[in-house]
């Protein structure tokens, strides 16, 4: 047993309380089927195009929308039922976006009508990539980036390490933790499939050491002589960012503006591996995912396997509802997740958690002037100067912000967390980045 401080990690970062005790030992339960499902057509990449008509009957697992282009994935029905329509419904972002609305069949046994299983070893590179895209599989860590895009390596690029992200550094969330404990064999099965296809020499799984049972479960499933290493890491935020994870595992920095592939790595979330194993070995596309429902405002915190498109309202009701003093709902983790304007929004492929907070957690202390203490600089894992960026953002100095690499900020929020003066640093940066992106889009539209 190594002492925690001798474990590997990346430079900088912060140590928020992990708040995982409420759910980390709770076995994943199944969300009962509800009567109505809403699936936004855009779930990672470009919106998919519906391939079923209004009123048409669909089976659980049947394809209901097809990928539009390469950076897009297929969408499958999470239930046996009927298509109600393609109107706009509220998305967790607050916007009203085009969705497929489904009515579940109350008399169906809701068995998955599985697709044909495929032996991944018999597929060459492009066929493999296309098959992953057909499974509707996206990164389940939260960003929901289409998984197959990462597997299409440009000619001449060598993938040395296939890296699995089991850090789960966001407080409260335990869905990846439970996945690693309960489905360790499938995590490793997915890892073997992808590593084999990419020609990676070895597989590294980084797991923060506050999940010893996950480390043990994964190690128990590694075959003797196999090049799969499970590395316990220090508990530090934002270690689950792929560049930070690579730095923690190999001591190599991914340069700004470059991808992990530029240092010979491909990084995936552990949950994505389970989805791949389900798709290749059992013919089940991505139609459900594990969501952690937690936070002080939830009556019965739980890890729930939820069919996509289930409304957050139904999911909360399944978890005993919320306390009356709940004043904020967050989708995702508390550091990077976004506040919800409505709980009548669906669970998406990228929804890792639904958290309910009361006034005690959401209170904002009054803001003071910058003390020039430098804590935000020590927090920033990208080695930016958040203090300067925040002041420039407040002054609206967009050109100077860009010259100070504001676009390299991943908006992890460690700076705001570290600031003793309660300056909303990451909020200022986020707003400025949105303005810069808007301006770029308008300029691109003009020319």
């Amino acid at each position, binding site marked *: 047993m190594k002492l925690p401080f001798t474990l590997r990690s990346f430079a900088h970062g912060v140590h928020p309380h992990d708040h995982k005790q409420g759910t980390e030992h709770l076995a994943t339960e199944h969300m009962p089927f509800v009567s109505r499902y809403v699936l936004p057509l855009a779930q990672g990449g470009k919106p998919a195009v519906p391939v079923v008509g209004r009123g048409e009957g669909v089976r659980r697992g049947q394809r209901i929308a097809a990928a539009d282009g390469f950076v897009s994935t297929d969408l499958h029905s999470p239930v046996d039922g009927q298509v109600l329509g393609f109107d*706009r419904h509220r998305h*967790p972002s*607050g*916007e009203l976006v085009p969705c497929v609305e489904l009515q579940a069949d109350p008399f169906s046994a809701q068995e998955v009508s599985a697709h044909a299983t495929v032996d991944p070893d018999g597929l060459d590179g492009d066929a493999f990539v296309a098959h992953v895209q057909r499974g509707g599989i996206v990164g389940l860590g939260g960003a929901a980036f289409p998984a197959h895009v990462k597997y299409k390596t440009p000619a001449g690029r060598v993938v040395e390490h296939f890296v699995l992200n089991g850090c789960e550094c966001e407080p409260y969330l335990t869905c990846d933790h439970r996945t690693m404990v309960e489905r360790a064999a499938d995590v490793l099965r997915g890892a073997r499939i992808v590593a084999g296809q990419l020609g990676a020499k070895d597989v590294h799984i980084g797991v923060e050491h506050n999940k010893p049972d996950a480390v043990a479960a994964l190690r128990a499933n590694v075959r003797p002589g196999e090049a799969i290493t499970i590395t316990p890491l220090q508990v530090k935020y934002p270690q689950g960012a792929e560049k930070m994870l690579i730095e923690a595992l190999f001591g190599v920095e991914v340069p700004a503006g470059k991808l992990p592939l530029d240092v010979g790595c491909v990084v995936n979330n552990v949950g994505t591996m389970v989805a791949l194993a389900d798709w290749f070995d059992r013919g089940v596309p991505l139609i459900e995912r594990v969501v952690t429902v937690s936070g002080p405002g939830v009556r019965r915190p739980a890890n729930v396997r939820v069919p996509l498109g289930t409304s957050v309202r139904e999911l909360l009701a399944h978890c005993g509802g919320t306390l009356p003093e709940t004043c904020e709902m967050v989708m995702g983790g508390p550091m990077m997740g976004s*506040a919800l304007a409505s709980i009548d929004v669906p669970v998406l492929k990228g929804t890792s958690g639904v958290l309910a907070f009361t006034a005690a957690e*959401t209170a904002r202390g009054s803001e003071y002037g910058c003390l020039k203490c430098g804590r935000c600089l020590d927090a920033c894992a990208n080695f930016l100067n958040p203090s300067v960026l925040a002041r420039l953002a407040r002054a609206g100095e967009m050109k100077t912000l860009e010259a100070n690499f504001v676009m390299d900020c991943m908006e992890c929020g460690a700076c705001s967390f570290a600031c003793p003066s309660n300056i909303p640093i990451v909020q*200022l940066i*986020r707003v400025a980045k*949105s303005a810069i992106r808007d301006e770029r889009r308008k300029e691109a539209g003009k020319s």
Partner: protein
Amino acid sequence: MGDVLMAGAIMAGLGVLLGAMLAFAYRFLRVPEDPRTARVEQLLPGTNCGGCGEPGCRAFAEALTAGARQPSGCTVAGPEAVAAIAAFLGVDAGALDRKVARLHCAGGKAQAVQIAAYDGFESCRGAHVTGGGGKGCSWGCLGLADCQRVCDFGAITMNDNGLPVVDVDKCTACGDCVVACPRDLFELLPLRQPLLVQCRVPLAGEAARQLCTAACDACGRCVQDAPEGLLRMVDNLPVVDYASAVDAGPAPTFRCPTGAIQFVAKAQFAKQEVRA
């Protein structure tokens, strides 16, 4: 003694040499400048707002004296200043087609449905990226005054209903508010055509009405009541052809069930119901 003389000689020599260079530059490298430019620049407002499309007042003055632009191109100068410049240069002032910033939304606190309270960073753009600011309509005005803060002319004030009111006399059509609005609700429109669609909701019927009592529900009556070609429906919204010289008067607004299309001669929202 020799050193002192030497120093004096060097200084004198340098003086002669540099003098010769100056004389050469004055003679052969001279850039002729229209002497009227300085005077025209004085007559311009000097705000350097960029509303005319030139990099600043000096550049616009140069374009005027060169005859490339007409004095009415300045959106800030009033009719007297434009006439003064035209008289000074002895040119035609050009047609004065004044534009002002207009907001394509009338969904204030009394009209738009609010589904959640926004208690975050005080900025429209901040609210826009955080769950849409809790406003039921994801196209409408967020009411947190980003436009008011960027207006250099003090032309925008937030009314009690949470909507920005543009002072037509102060607005110079510089376009800063158009850039600042995260929902692209401002547009620079000519004053001579007062027909204005105050909504950007691309939904029709009940779906639009349940978001806001001032939303356009795409019934199409305004298009029927307008002269041929002045209005057309695009994505469930009427679009006014501001290039058209047709003067339809307020007739197309009479049968609008929600008041989404308005006849606005001066400031917007003058007659609107307000709930503070």
